[in-house]
């Protein structure tokens, strides 16, 4: 027990692997037992993570010890939970058992192996979220790919091989470039400690910093995914089994955004601000592009996949704004997307399990047959389109507001452009909702609606209820989830010397006005311009 007390993070990271290996050793005939054991274990990890991490008050837990030396460069065994990753860690431990429960009967073959892979994946995700040594982080980052590759490639749909290979190679090719940058910088810094590496990077010439940042950014941007590096996502999501899609959307994509805020931005602040404009531009494109493409999809799952591109564009826009409001919005939006899109994939999975189709045109009038399901789907839809009092609104509003007051000259324009994503989001989600759930019942014997016989059962309701509660909780009281990241985010932006927010200067009434000569420019609101130009070069 003393070991556990001093190494709670190690336990959380590696216990799932241990359990997973045990499950793998069980014979195939005991798949149902393995599934049950896996679920109970994942649930226990979730409870433990809640108890341990929230119990630590400030939520700051560190484990660090020298590990081994790689060609003369020390690698640390370093795990940390702090304000930046606390809720992402809990989101991960929360989604894993929930997804297992939600897809209990979705798979028919090798369910024990699937549960085992799921637990291995949990280790990879938690390790990547907690690792505080870049080599350690890299190991987990790549280790995540393997279980996911098999989940898509073995249990996926008809095009699973193409999707699995695309997912794997896309992500790998990004991270190999990143590995080169990592090793280069580690040689300069004499180790893989991110703080030391950041200090070493700041002494390098600016163009070298830029290249290193680009290498980091591309690896993370593929994971996010940022336009135009997103095309692996729709294929992977559509082909993956429901559980894979949920975790892919719920956690794996977050690691891209998390990589930016944990490593890429603090280590190369100058380069990050230099490239803030292109990143923001790509984010705005992703928001609009993802929404427009989602609008014309015929497969519900693919629609949700493209909506992810749009939603994660908001995350990147918030990060690129370099304001506390925008960055906090990005942090919250990552959690939002994990909850809402995860829930959407679960719901689509429940529909698919019954109807064996996901084509929008195959449905119509589902609300008559499955009222409870419809209610859940509708609430999650509202969250996805960012209706106030659901989580989606707070995140998007912060991001837009943060971008608008951002110290960069492009902030206002991009914020206004990104707002259109809010409209388009409603267009694709509600149009789909209308075609699937409303309207006269589709009586065609081949239709999906015809094959719906049962509404959600108790297990499925038990899966959806916590998600709906979270959607509302995060919308009504977002401070529960963002208060802890406020201090680290503020410190990070201060260290990065982010430009001060740019506000409008209004002209006071005549009798108390300052000298009238300067007034005309001020009304245009370019008072804070110099700071922005400085960074913007």
């Amino acid at each position, binding site marked *: 027990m003393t070991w556990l007390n001093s190494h709670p993070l190690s336990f959380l990271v590696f216990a799932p692997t241990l359990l997973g290996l045990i499950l793998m050793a069980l014979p195939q005939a005991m798949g149902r037992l393995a599934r049950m054991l896996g679920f109970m274990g994942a649930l226990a990890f979730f409870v433990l993570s809640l108890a341990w991490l929230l119990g630590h008050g400030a939520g700051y837990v560190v484990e660090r010890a020298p590990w081994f030396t790689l060609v003369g460069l020390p690698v640390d065994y370093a795990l940390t939970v702090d304000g930046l990753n606390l809720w992402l860690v809990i989101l991960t431990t929360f989604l894993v058992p929930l997804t297992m429960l939600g897809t209990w009967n979705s798979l028919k073959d090798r369910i024990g192996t699937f549960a085992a892979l799921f637990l291995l994946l949990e280790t990879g995700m938690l390790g990547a979220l907690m690792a505080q040594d870049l080599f350690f982080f890299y190991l987990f980052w790549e280790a995540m790919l393997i279980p996911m590759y098999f989940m898509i490639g073995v249990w996926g749909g008809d095009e699973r091989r193409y999707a699995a290979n695309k997912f794997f190679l896309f992500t790998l090719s990004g991270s190999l470039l990143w590995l080169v940058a990592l090793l280069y910088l580690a040689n300069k810094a004499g180790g893989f400690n991110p703080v030391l590496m950041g200090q070493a990077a700041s002494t390098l010439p600016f163009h070298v910093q830029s290249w290193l940042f680009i290498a980091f950014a591309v690896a993370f941007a593929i994971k996010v995914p940022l336009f135009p590096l997103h095309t692996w996502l729709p294929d992977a999501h559509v082909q993956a089994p429901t559980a894979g899609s949920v975790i892919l959307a719920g956690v794996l994509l977050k690691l891209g955004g998390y990589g930016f805020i944990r490593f890429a931005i603090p280590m190369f602040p100058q380069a990050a601000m230099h490239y803030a404009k292109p990143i923001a531009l790509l984010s705005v494109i992703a928001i609009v592009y993802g929404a427009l493409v989602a609008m014309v999809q015929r497969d519900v799952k693919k629609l949700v996949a493209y909506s992810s591109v749009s939603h994660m564009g908001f995350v990147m826009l918030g990060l690129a704004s370099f304001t506390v409001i925008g960055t906090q919005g990005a942090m919250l939006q990552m959690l939002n997307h994990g909850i809402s899109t995860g829930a959407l994939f679960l719901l689509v999975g429940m529909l698919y399990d019954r109807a064996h189709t996901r084509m929008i045109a195959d449905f119509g009038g589902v609300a008559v047959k499955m009222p409870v399901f419809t209610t859940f789907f509708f609430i999650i839809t509202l969250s996805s389109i960012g209706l106030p009092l659901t989580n989606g609104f707070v995140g998007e509003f912060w991001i837009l*507001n943060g971008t608008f007051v951002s110290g960069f000259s492009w902030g206002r324009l991009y914020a206004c452009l990104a707002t259109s994503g809010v409209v388009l989001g409603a267009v694709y989600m509600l149009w789909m909702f209308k075609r699937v759930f409303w309207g006269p019942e589709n009586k065609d014997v081949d239709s999906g609606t015809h094959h719906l016989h049962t509404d959600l059962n108790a297990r499925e309701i038990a899966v959806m209820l916590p998600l709906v509660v979270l959607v509302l909780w995060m919308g009504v009281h977002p*401070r529960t989830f963002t208060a802890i990241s406020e201090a680290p985010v503020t410190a990070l932006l201060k260290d990065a010397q982010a430009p001060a927010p740019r506000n409008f200067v209004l002209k006071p009434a005549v009798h108390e006005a300052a000298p009238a000569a300067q007034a005309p420019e001020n009304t245009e609101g370019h008072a804070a311009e110099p700071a922005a130009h400085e960074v913007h070069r």
Partner: protein
Amino acid sequence: MNKYYWLIPILPLLGSLFNGLLGKRAGKGVVTFVGVGVVFGALLLACSAFFAMKGTADHRLALTYGEWMGTGALSVPIGLVVDTLSGTMMLIITGVSFLIHLYSVGYMHEDEGYARFFCYLNLFVFFMLTLVLGSSLPLMFVGWEGVGLCSYLLIGYFFETDYAPDAGLKAFLTNRVGDLGVVIGMMVLFAAFGTLTVADILTQAGHLAPEVGFGVLTFATLMLFMGATGKSAQLPLYLWLPDAMAGPTPVSALIHAATMVTSGIYLICRLAPVFTLTPITLTVVAWVGAATALFAATIGLVQRDIKKVLAYSTVSQLGYMFLGLGASGFAAGFFHVFTHAWFKALLFLGAGSVILAMHHEQDLFKMGGLKAKLPITFWTMLIATLAIIGFPGTSGFASKDEILYLAYLKSPALWVVGVLAACCTAFYMLRLFTLTFLGKARDHHAYDHAHESPATMTLPLALLAVGTLLAVWLGWPKAFGGDFRIEAWLAPATTFGQLHAVHGEHGSHALAWALASVSTVLGLGFAAFGYLSYKDGLAVSAARAVRFPFLHNLLLNKYYVDEGVELYLLRPLRWFGNVLWKLFDVIIIDGVGVNLPGALTRVSGDFTALFQTGRVRNYALSMALGAALLLYVFLK
């Protein structure tokens, strides 16, 4: 009592939750009790809050409960503000809502989704009260979007039909376009004032000089007005409101006539000191309002569906309200909100009563002669009709006249447009009234079975009629010996934080008399014209339609705006989405960027695989040749 006022919005929310979660199991009696009871409770509390507010020195009651979504420099307190403006609005909402809840008990009694209906209706009251009472813009936006959501759900209430889902979707999406403006407006205001709390914004705005030309605040207010055009169905975002009549009639009365659609006007009144600083915006507001008033009124001339006529009439009347606001007559515009809430709710509920009596027949051409069958409905509808056409002495006359008078002071052209719209209004309202109640029955089967509605429906009609008559007390124009007391009443709210109250120019009483005489005579003339055209049935109007086929078709098809939107906006948008997907995503990024390198790798692999024949002799030969080559190189 102060500490219970948070219950004003929360009570309906609790009612909604109860009806939504347990209503179906609890039975209709419990649903009725809870659904109507919570609104009645909110009404009582609202009255208490109203008088508490009246008792304070500055006519303002501000309560704060905590922080909602603050981070960094942004702070959004959860709080409610009852002042003269929001207090009046709160009373209108809870009062009209209560009557309409009562009416719905009778109207929806046969419906299977009874509990669901009251769930939505209660939820709407919650959101509407949040919109009105919220102390900061994001909190108001909660209500703003929330009422849009309820409107969407209630329009799509008959979701298993063909038309209701489309109408609901259209309403939500059109509103969302407007909401985009509100979000941008909020961002600009935050960047300008560093806060989103209404009181703080207004206090700071009080120190500012009006903007000359197009400045920051002009942009912000224009964006907010864009939101208002969505919610209050003005050009060009009015399209959803006529379709919204797909919902049950009480919904049309409550949401799409009396309360929700006026929230755009409320928003502008709420931020009146800011709008006062932006003359350009006010001019835009006035012209959009006037244009909408005339545009919608002309469409209303030829519609056959009783609810459609009333819907276009609502759009048109909302245009009047904006015309008033644009002419800096915040009190006048709001007064029209107040009077309109009564008589338009009454008209819709009366129409609902007629529709129910006719067994869900909404076609005016199939009605007629119902005066004898529906006496209460007939008399109450008559009061409402007189009010809406501005018959002298009615509340409609008072509010419309004040607006037209202010419009004339701003620009005579606005007045002309307004009067034309008033003429159209008089015509189509008399047409509706005559076709429904007077003349001979055109569908005898339905006529024979028609009977007056139950008391839960006629009682609200009577109460609303009384309200319609009494509303005039609040704002009889000064020119005619009244004191237009609503202006002084609202002044603490519409001039909040202003150091120097802006006084609009005031013309003479003689001018007011002259203008009023002209518009009233014209209006009554067109009313008579409407009555004469339809008193003997449909022959006269049919002949007229044949004589002016182009005009008739244009109006009947609502200027083909819906078709235009589909053809020039939605279809290109879908086309563009498809191009992005199939051309850009699949061919350019995936094809050229991803699969092409993959294919090149595979081709080069295939090429080198040609040398992997699998035959031992080939390998041996290449080994021998390689060895020979090495020997040659090294031993040369």
